[in-house]
């Protein structure tokens, strides 16, 4: 571009300058709304990239042990409730949908609709967290939280009932044989000491709590932000504001979908392995 053209563009951009800066939507560091919007979008994407690697590293660690202790992890994961997990996946997928609708409504400046869909999203997130609360408290109750009173006996009991674990005694010591019963015939895959079994199932629940805990934290943070956005959308509605900045909703949407995606991977990896 020639200097003349450049100056023309710059001047044009400045033409709308006062109007935009005045209405409180355009940040002072930006020249145009378009620049601001893409900046926020790209910034959010950069943040998502960061989140992908954040969760990715822990998925990598999980994968290593998932391979190393296949049988123990499979037995331990029976303690997770598939109905609860499925319900939560359903709820979260649905909340992603309502979030997408909220973003759409925000782009159309339909504040009431936006508030409605945000509220639905908030509600689904709440259902997710309540579910999570019940799941967690069941784990705590059964001493499956890998803290001081961790105890694998629940896992052992269930595995025994399913015919996937057998207690054997040799040389006065107790061992667990892990395997499968088919046609009344038990085939052992591996044999471990009770201590090892405890260690490895503890590792599984460690991963379970760290991964779902970090995910849950993200859901909570998302709920707080969505809560604020509901309030803002409602105020916009009451004030009958013709135009509102839809970027906060759009960015929250991106964040929310990311939280959804993390769960899309967590669900099969934790709840559905090797049944």
């Amino acid at each position, binding site marked *: 571009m020639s200097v003349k053209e450049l100056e023309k563009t*710059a001047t044009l951009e400045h033409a709308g300058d006062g109007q935009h800066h005045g209405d409180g939507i355009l940040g002072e560091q930006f020249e145009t709304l378009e620049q601001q919007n893409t900046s926020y979008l790209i910034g959010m994407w950069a943040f998502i990239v960061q989140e992908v690697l954040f969760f990715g590293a822990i998925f990598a660690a999980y994968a290593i042990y998932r391979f190393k202790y296949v049988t123990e992890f499979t037995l331990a994961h029976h303690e997770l409730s598939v109905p609860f997990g499925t319900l939560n996946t359903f709820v979260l997928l649905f909340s992603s949908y309502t979030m997408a609708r909220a973003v759409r409504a925000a782009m159309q400046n339909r504040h009431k609709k936006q508030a409605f869909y945000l509220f639905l999203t908030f509600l689904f997130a709440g259902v997710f967290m309540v579910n999570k609360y019940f799941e967690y408290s069941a784990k705590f109750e059964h001493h499956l939280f890998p803290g001081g009173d961790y105890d694998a006996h629940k896992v052992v009991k269930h595995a025994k009932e399913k015919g996937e674990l057998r207690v054997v005694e040799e040389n006065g010591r107790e061992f667990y044989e892990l395997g499968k019963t088919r046609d009344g015939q038990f085939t052992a895959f591996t044999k471990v000491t009770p201590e090892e079994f405890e260690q490895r199932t503890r590792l599984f629940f460690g991963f379970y709590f760290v991964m779902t805990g970090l995910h849950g934290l993200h859901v909570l943070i998302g709920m707080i932000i969505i809560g604020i956005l509901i309030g803002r959308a409602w105020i916009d509605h009451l004030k009958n504001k013709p135009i509102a900045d839809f970027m906060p909703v759009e960015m929250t949407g991106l964040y929310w979908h990311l939280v959804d995606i993390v769960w899309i991977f967590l669900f099969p990896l934790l709840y559905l392995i090797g049944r």
Partner: protein
Amino acid sequence: MATATYTGTEKPNYLNWKTTVASWLLTYDHKRIAILYLVSISIFFLLGGLAAAFIRLDLATPKGDLLTSDIYNKMFTTHGVIMIFLFLIPSIPAVFGNFLLPLMIGARDVAFPRLNLLSWYFFMAGALLVLIALFRGGIDTGWTFYTPYSSSFAKGEVSLAIVGVFLAGFASIFTGINFLVTIHKMRAPGMTWFRLPLFVWAMYATSLIQVLGTPVVAITLLLVAVERTFRIGIFDPNLGGDPILYQHLFWFYSHPAVYIMILPAMGVISEVLSAFSKRRVFGYHFVAFSSLAIAIIGFLVWGHHMFSTGQSMYAGIVFSFLTWIVAIPSAIKIFNWMATIWKGRVHWDTPMLYALGFMGLFVIGGLTGLHLAAMATNVHLTDTYFIVAHFHYVMVGGAIMGYLAALHFWWPKMTGRMYPEGWGKLAAMLVFVGFNLTFFPQFILGYMGMPRRYHSYPEEWAVLNVLSTAGSSVLGFGYLLPVIYLTWSLKYGKVVTERNPWGARGLEWELVDPVPDPHNFERIPIVTRPAYDYAHPEEPTGFVPKPRPVVVGGKDG
């Protein structure tokens, strides 16, 4: 919009237009945030330096008579954690990146000023936790937090320090996100990618690493803290875990982190060499792309920290191969810098002395990296003083020389005062000589096999160690001098009245007041010429279109 509170008589600038404490602590101005970072990391640098002084003094005698081995271990951990996480990683990006990026690309601020301030608060919160951990008895894991020692054996507030590093890590991520978006979206009209100053290219590459690498180390360290608290065997073999996995995840970030430290310094050197040679940086495109190449290939070489750990040989060979490849972009930069001086008009001012010093030290650091890229010699040299010398040549000789060059070069723009030139030159010489005295003997010690992190050592190595300790006192004095005279110059230094005291090119020199006002530019400038256009000194790099009335105040009014 800002309300005017400024009542002074001078032209308002970002330093004097508001002076309350709150106006500093709640500022969204990238320049003020840069100053906040500058002050905080200077304090951490002195703390880390103090720990280093204790280490060197203790090593003056083979038995290590000054400290007990326990305190010695805590000292080198303190030194490493502070210097790496609280000084080197934020040093050039958070101080000069913040101060200069918007000025260099012709923007009013970074894309996300509030995130920028938040990043400083994250950094300070992290630093506070680290310091609390250190004052409550210290930690002795080494800055690498290697498992299972850190997760199952080490005493002390390791988890607290880890949470501190975690928070500081997020400060770094926020800075990275901010800069990536700023460089992509905030460039002034006419500021095309290939008109960007090379410092901006270097910052872009650095930000990539910050965003892509830091989250991995954050979660990894968090897992160590979890393992400590709940005895989950993620990294401790006695609990069923794998320490090699920790090393993979740790070095996935921590090797590229070396480039977080050195790439910005390389950017500074490009600016300074060209400004004081009055010549366009030779092979601009090659220098720019070599920064990107370093950032990207740098992610593929982490396994070279693990040649002797029992990593698979096949993986090791791939990592070694890529390590040799990543040396090439650095070589390209060095040769292009030499060609920049060629046929230039070289002014021997203090920043240039530091830049030349950088060339000397970085070349030694880089070339000794070849001994470590070679798998066979790596096995002999790893975890010895050769490593210590090598990474100090790169990080201290490279990154800190770059940092000091930047500090002197942009000091008049940041403060409106000139540093005392004579003292500056003296300090630059002292740092260079002291540095070589301190660290060159360590190459020899390393080749002889002296292990790092040793509190005592065999008698026959005493002479070289004494030499190193003696050198470190010269180096320490060399570092103290700038602290003193730069502080002095804030009040007594010569006031800078011209925009461009060095006759440099670049928007921050040509279009911005001696001390920038809170807006940076009255209006967004238009860039008309490439960077470093020293061949046409009569035509400025860009111009500010039509003036508009000065509104006093800034984004944080």
